[in-house]
Structure formats: structure tokens, C-alpha cells
């Protein structure tokens, strides 16, 4: 088989590739369950269908889709401009820390606490992304490694804070902060569920992202910087501004995701506040074709994977890491399927290079 470059990217394949990837990942997951000595069909049912059997499942789905959507939207805007923020996990953590600092500092002072907590979360995440932007524009240090290293740093800072300055003095020495006051917390959207208004904020990024990327000059500039840096420079579109914009935006969104977790379902700072939402956001961004509407679908699917992974842990005693393997397979299959967006397979007898 040989690959032949298509004259133009295939629009049909661009939509089909994620579908194919999901199906292949499902098959891969079944093989994985079989290898672990479980009934593949029962496991697949637990993974994809059982979590949505009741209303609470849908609420949990929204809860998990929220941080994924926020992180992925920022990452996607960045990748469109060829700015690779793979440290959303760290910005998520810093957002949570900044929001927690405000929440714990203000206590139950009034209605204005929650907005300030959210703003602090966005600022914390954006600041952490800003460090990477500064180092990239000022010192040319590539953002892939810097944002990732900053993630490790942020997670250690969180670990230090919950064992030191922000530890709950009445918490029996557990590594966690005091619970936030009610006025610092996002209220559940409806009785009995844990999903909060953060879901609404996350959903708002879908039209906002679509308008930004497809309907504004700023979005156009970002895309040109990403697709044709030479042309962008010639047109006077500043790469430096694109880097700053993307890292502040994606950092801020990841920070918002972080603060919404600690001021929502978690309610306090703990050493582990994210099951890898920041990293999974990268997969969501690609699975969603770097387009806002696609990312919405991908975030819901990934949330289902997280939810199903938890059920598998409970009902089949499978480690949570199984979710990570399936996530990895999903992205690998997607990248493989994507080849046929740009190339067309040709079956012939002649041999190409190597």
C-alpha cells in the first residue's frame, strides 16, 4: 500500500476519522479487558452505557465534561496558532490554588466572594501560562517543555501548600485545606446533582470559540500564524502576540476549570484535585478537530470515559489507569486515521521508499 497526497484535505475523512478512532479504541478496550481476564462485553457496557442509566449519571457527565471542555478549548485555540500548551494541568492547579487563597482569605464575607474566587482562578491559570509565554517570547524557550515542567512545579506547590501554609489546622494533620465557606462555592444546578454553573460557563466557550476562530480578525491572524508563519510575518501579524494571547487564554480557561473544581464538587484544596483533566484536554482538542463544536462532543465522550472508568473500578475492580490506556489508544488511533484526511491509500505492486 502506498500513500498519495490528496489535492485538498478530505472533509468527509476529517469528520469520519474521530468516529473510526472511537470505534477502534472500543475494540482495543475490549481486547484490553479480555487480556485482563474480564468479560469484554460486560466491561464495554459498564464503560459506555451503564453510567448514563440514571439522572445522576448525566449530572456527573456534565461535571466531568466541564473541565475537559475548558482545558481543551484553550489548547485547541493554541494549536491552531501552532502554540502548544501541554501544561494545562499546571494552569488548572494554579487556578485552583489562587481561587482557594481568595476563598479561604475572604471566608463568608458576602455574595461577592464567589466572583472574586473565579476571577482569581482565571488569573492564577493565566499567570502560569503567562510565565511560559514570557519565557517563549523573551528567551525563545519552547513552550512545550516549559508548560510541562511548570505543571510538575505547580503540582508540587499544591502538595506543599496543603501540608504547610494552607493546611487545615483542625484537619487532624490530613494534607488538605479547610472547607470553603458557602459564599465561595458554586451551587449545584439542581437538587441532588453535583454539576454546577461551571458547566454553563464551559458551554459558553463553544460559541465564543467559534466566533473567535471563524468570525474575527484576531482569530484569522492566529490561524495564519499557525498555518503559514512566513506569510504571517510578511503580513505583519505578530507571532509574539499570538503566543501571549494563546497562553494567557488557555491558561485562564484551565485556571477557571481548576477553580470550578475546588469551589464546586471538591470544596477544598487537596494534593490531588485532577485525574489528569489537563492532559486529557489535549486528546479532547484533537478528537474535536480543534473546532469548538467538535470539542464539545469530544469532551462529553471523554467525560463518559472517565465516568465509565470509575464504574469499572467499582464493579470490575479494574484500576483507574485503564482509562488512561484507552485515552492513549484513542489518540493514537485518531492520529493514524487522520492520515487518510491528507493522503489517499493506493494499492499497487511497486515498492516505495523503505
Amino acid at each position, binding site marked *: 500500500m502506498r500513500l498519495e497526497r490528496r489535492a485538498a484535505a478530505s472533509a468527509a475523512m476529517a469528520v469520519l476519522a474521530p468516529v473510526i478512532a472511537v470505534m477502534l479504541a472500543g475494540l482495543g478496550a475490549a481486547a484490553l479487558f479480555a487480556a485482563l481476564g474480564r468479560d469484554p462485553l460486560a466491561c464495554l457496557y459498564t464503560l459506555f452505557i451503564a453510567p448514563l442509566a440514571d439522572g445522576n449519571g448525566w449530572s456527573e457527565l456534565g461535571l466531568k465534561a466541564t473541565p475537559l471542555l475548558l482545558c481543551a478549548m484553550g489548547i485547541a485555540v493554541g494549536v491552531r496558532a501552532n502554540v502548544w500548551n501541554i501544561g494545562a494541568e499546571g494552569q488548572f492547579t494554579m487556578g485552583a490554588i489562587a481561587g482557594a487563597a481568595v476563598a479561604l482569605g475572604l471566608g463568608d464575607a458576602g455574595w461577592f466572594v464567589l466572583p472574586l474566587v473565579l476571577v482569581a482562578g482565571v488569573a492564577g491559570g493565566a499567570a502560569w501560562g503567562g510565565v511560559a509565554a514570557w519565557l517563549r517570547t523573551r528567551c*525563545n524557550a519552547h513552550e512545550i517543555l*516549559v508548560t510541562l*515542567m511548570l505543571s510538575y512545579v505547580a503540582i508540587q*506547590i499544591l502538595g506543599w501548600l496543603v501540608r504547610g501554609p494552607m493546611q487545615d489546622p483542625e484537619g487532624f494533620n490530613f494534607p488538605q485545606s479547610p472547607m470553603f465557606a458557602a459564599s465561595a462555592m458554586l451551587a449545584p444546578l439542581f437538587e441532588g446533582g453535583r454539576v454546577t454553573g461551571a458547566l454553563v460557563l464551559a458551554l459558553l466557550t463553544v460559541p465564543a470559540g467559534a466566533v473567535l476562530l471563524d468570525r474575527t480578525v484576531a482569530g484569522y491572524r492566529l490561524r495564519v500564524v499557525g498555518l503559514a508563519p512566513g506569510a504571517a510575518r510578511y503580513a505583519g501579524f505578530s507571532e509574539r502576540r499570538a503566543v501571549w494571547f494563546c497562553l494567557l487564554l488557555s491558561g485562564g480557561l484551565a485556571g477557571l476549570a481548576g477553580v470550578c473544581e475546588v469551589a464546586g464538587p471538591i470544596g477544598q484544596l487537596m494534593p490531588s484535585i485532577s485525574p489528569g483533566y489537563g492532559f486529557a484536554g489535549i486528546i479532547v482538542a484533537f478528537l474535536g478537530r480543534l473546532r469548538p463544536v467538535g470539542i464539545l462532543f469530544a469532551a462529553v465522550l471523554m467525560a463518559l470515559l472517565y465516568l465509565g472508568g470509575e464504574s469499572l473500578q467499582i464493579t470490575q475492580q479494574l484500576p483507574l489507569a485503564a482509562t488512561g490506556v484507552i485515552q492513549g489508544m484513542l489518540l493514537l488511533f485518531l*492520529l493514524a486515521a487522520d*492520515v487518510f484526511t491528507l493522503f489517499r491509500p493506493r494499492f499497487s505492486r511497486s515498492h516505495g521508499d523503505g
Partner: protein
Amino acid sequence: MDEVMIVALLVATLRAAAPLILAGLGELVCERAGVLNLGVEGMMLVGAMVGFAATLTSGSVWLGLLAAMLAGAAMAGVFAVLTIGLAANQVASGLALTIFGVGFSALFGAPYQSHPIPGLATVVFPHLSAAAPLVQQLLLIDPLVWLALAAPFLAGRFLDRTRAGLILRAVGESAEVAHALGYKVMRIRALATVFGGAMAGLGGAYLSLAYTPMWTENMVSGRGWIALALVVFSTWKPLLLALGAVLFGFVTIAGFQAEAWGIPLAPNLLATLPYLATILVLVLISRDTLRLKLNAPAALGKPFHPAG
């Protein structure tokens, strides 16, 4: 500080540097051929887990190391099929490999969690464990550390002084020209990638078989990414990479020692040192844009597909 302490510090530094050198050299060779594989962290983790599991089942550390290298090579093979065979985006594919490796090693490594085994050093010289403290310290320099010390010279010699090394560099500088000269660009890149995977697997196995020695989830904790940063720091030169790795080994060990030296820093904050040092090193080297541009393989990260 007496002799034993200085030697102990030196040995500990070399032991901390060894996995970075091994994994870093593999990536360096791979990047010299024009392939950027961001999956080092994932390959190291799988190498660490497979190496540990194979050692525990077979009872032989050497079989464990071999299994780790094969596992790393297999993962790199998947990466090669994706990025070289199917011309997929190298950055995204590398990230996918790491995400997969983190999950895979945690899932299949769960039964082996926190199960101590005799480390590589003690396996090699079991009868000398009652020797003098200084000798004992020196005995901690296990064969893989020696390999890590020799490998940069070997890699440097291969890249600069052999025909195969020259061809590999040509492929990394301009795949089109190398192709026009009749070299099998895709095959050479695939081989370099697989070599990088095997080295990453070996570096990971060093952690679980000699450095700790035990398997714990996510035990590579960013060393794969640090190795990637070291490749940039070294401006793609093996000896500089080893030097950088030793520097990092020292920072890591200094972090462990800080408490003994009376530096009052919380353990979590000390743990940030290697990551901050990585950023610092990247910043220092990247400021010199010209030097990076002159030394980076010109076709790094660019997919190549022969026309037709």
C-alpha cells in the same frame, strides 16, 4: 566532608544521571535523524514496568533489561509507523505515546507495586557486601552507570566518525537530499526511532532495577521530559548531553541532601528543583537563537514522504 561522603555524593550523582543519559542519548540520535519523539516519558515508564516485571518473573536482571529495551523499542515502533509510515504529526503522536505509556504501565504494573527486589549493583557483587564503606560506595556504580558513561563517547563517535552516522545526520538535515542520493530515508528514520525507544526503555529500567530498585506508579516523574530538554541543552551533542545529565543528577541529589545540610525547605519545594533547573537550562540555551539554529537538525519534526 570526608572522602567517603564525597565519593558517595559523586556516585549518587552519577546514578541519578544515568537514566537521563541513556534516554537522552536515544532521543538525541533519533532527533539527529529528524524525528522528534515526545514519547520518552511514556517509553521510560513502560520500560521501567516491563523491566521490573520481567526481572521478577525470570529472576534475571539482564533478561529484565532486555525486556525493557524491547518494550521501549516496540512503543517507538508504533510511533514510527504513525509518524514515518503514515506521516502523522510528531508532536501529537509523541504526546499520545506518553499518555498511553503512563496508563499502560500503571495498569499492568499494579500487581508489582512496591515489591522490593535486589538491585543491579548488589546482584553483580553479592559476596562483597561486607567490604569497606568506600569500596561499597564504588560498588554502587553498577554496569549500567559505566555504560551511561561510555555511551556518549560511542554515540559521538558513531555520529561524527562513521559513514552510517553521516548518513543518519544527512537524513536529519535534509530528507529530500538524502532521498535523492538514494538513501532509504524512512527506513533510517524508523531505525533511529526504534533505537531511541530501546534506550528510553533501558533508562526507565535503570530506575526500577538499579536506582530505587522497585516499581511504583509514575516513578519516572518527568525524567523523560527532562531528557528531552537535555537534548536541546546539549545542542544535539552527546558529550554535552552527558554533562547536562550529570549536572541534573547533582541538582536532584543536592535536593535530597538539603535537609542534611541544614537547608530548611519543605520536601515538596525541593522536589521542584529539577523542573525549575530544566526551565533555567532551556532558557539559557534558547536565548542564543543562532547557536540553536546552527546546531538543530534542519529537518527536525518535519515529516517526509517520497513523492509519487
